[in-house]
């Protein structure tokens, strides 16, 4: 068993903590989403939907808590989607040559970058949950300590699989594309439908049928659903919409994300094996 991916991971983390601007912005960004967008939207949503009759006998969740799960998903999406960019610069400034000329299998390069992305995603997830609790997000309400820990582990697993998938995707684009502008525009183009055709920030129950159908295959929807299952429970209502997550639903989230991550991994392997030094 080889562990060369640890070297790739080590280098990436070293630079993450060295570039203070990157470190600072990636830590502050989730807080800003929650503090500005979250509070503003939740106030107006709660006001707009205050007259909607609640579903009786089901715990009511406020919009901030509903959206908190989506913010985790979205924040992790953006950082992992753009996370592969480092590979493009490494290739451009021929830093990758040293690694590509070494006995390190290409899979280890992808894995190392992926795992460092997962670490960063965990840090962001904890910041959102922590700061969210401070401003009144009702995650893990009424949970025992064991239940909370179980829920956290569930969320971390989902976040990890999701992040790996998007880093593999981002890495394959980065290794193929030559210039930063091209990379930037492809990623922005990709993030638009992912972001809007999902239930990260709003319920999709009243979406047009086609968008609703598409959103079921969106990894962002799968992740947001999964986080809600673990953080808010399997049965709640928000803004008059009744949410029930069955074991089948959470299994779909896991399986869908695993399928996504594996497909992206094979795409990344395909692209990486084509890279010429």
């Amino acid at each position, binding site marked *: 068993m080889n562990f060369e991916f640890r*070297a790739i991971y080590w280098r990436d983390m070293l630079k993450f903590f060295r570039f203070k601007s990157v470190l600072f912005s990636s830590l502050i960004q989730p807080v800003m989403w929650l503090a500005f967008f979250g509070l503003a939207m939740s106030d107006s949503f709660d006001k707009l939907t205050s007259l909607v009759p609640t579903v009786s006998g089901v715990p009511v969740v406020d919009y901030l808590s509903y959206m908190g799960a989506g913010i985790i998903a979205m924040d992790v999406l953006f950082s992992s989607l753009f996370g592969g960019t480092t590979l493009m610069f490494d290739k451009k*400034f*021929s830093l990758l040559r040293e690694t590509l000329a070494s006995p390190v299998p290409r899979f280890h390069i992808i894995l190392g970058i992926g795992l460092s992305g997962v670490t960063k995603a965990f840090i962001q997830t904890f910041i959102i949950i922590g700061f969210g609790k401070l401003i009144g997000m009702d995650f893990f309400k009424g949970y025992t300590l064991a239940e909370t820990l179980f829920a956290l582990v569930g969320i971390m697993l989902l976040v990890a699989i999701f992040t790996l998938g998007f880093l593999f995707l981002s890495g394959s684009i980065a290794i193929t594309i030559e210039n930063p502008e091209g990379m930037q525009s492809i990623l922005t183009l990709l993030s638009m439908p992912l972001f809007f055709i999902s239930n990260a920030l709003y319920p999709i129950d009243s979406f047009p049928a086609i968008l609703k159908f598409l959103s079921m295959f969106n990894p962002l929807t799968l992740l947001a659903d999964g986080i809600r299952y673990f953080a808010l429970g399997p049965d709640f209502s928000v803004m008059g919409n009744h949410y029930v997550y069955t074991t089948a639903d959470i299994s779909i989230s896991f399986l869908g994300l695993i399928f996504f991550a594996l497909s992206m991994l094979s795409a990344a392997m395909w692209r990486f094996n084509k890279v010429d030094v």
Partner: protein
Amino acid sequence: MSGNVIEVNNLEHSYGSVKAVDNISFSVKQGEIFSFLGPNGAGKSTVINILTTLKKIQKGEARVNGYDVAKESKSVRRSIGIVFQMLCLDHEMTVSENLEYHGKIYSMPKKERKQRIDELLKLTDLESKKNTLAKDLSGGMKRRLELARGLMTKPAVLFLDEPTVGFDIQTRMRMWEYLREIKREGTTIFLTTHYMEEADQLSDRISIIDHGKIIVTGNADELKNKLGKDLIYLETSDNKTAAEILRSLRSVKTVTEDTKSLRVLIAEDVTHVLPQLMEKIRGEGIEITTVNIKKPSMDDVFVQYTGHGLREGDEKEKQQGMEMVGVSQ
């Protein structure tokens, strides 16, 4: 292995219809510095890329440290160190972190890594720069750091692709000192260069390569002596006739007519030949305007074997070299 660290037989490589490497065979002995001397585009880098398994071998056979380049690429990679033509250091990491990373990707144990880093920083005089970010080093220091990195894993052979391109002569001469020191420690070095002095001063053996072919191989003195003992440059009022007269003399090996002057290679000691030679030319009523005597240099060897100079386009190459270094700044 018969003491050869590199063994290449009938190597060929094409890019589309262009043959970059044309049926090359050579071997590099344990512990020597072996140079490929030739202009840009002669096929030097292609050979290096094939030997370091960065390019798939198309035709022929190559073994490095006893391993087949085509079938045992992983073992080949473990046996070698590479210093690429372009600088490729991580500028946001310190000197020792750059080395540390290299040790890690080659799975060196921690203790061994630390010890080797200390040794190499000493060897390359970078001890005081240990914790300096790579971007804050001078060009020469960066190159030395790359040299240290190439030696991290104690490779059987170190490949250097144009190691001093774009450097001033002082920096270049310092680099040569380091390379000699590395050789003394027992590392075999294979380098490509288009600098005559580099090949001349540094190498145990040189292969002159042009248009993908090895033209001649030998040590610098051998190559120069083959040309003749001395070289005379003459300018006369009638070069054409003078050349004919010279060719008829027994002591003259070859005469080449350049645009303005005659290049005369002499087989014997020039001090005895010159008076007689000048007298003969004057006797035919030809006036001699300039005489210049020198020992054959690598330049002369190169011109003799390839039929053209290496200096043509040299300025352009130098510029390209600077740009290459500049890219990674």
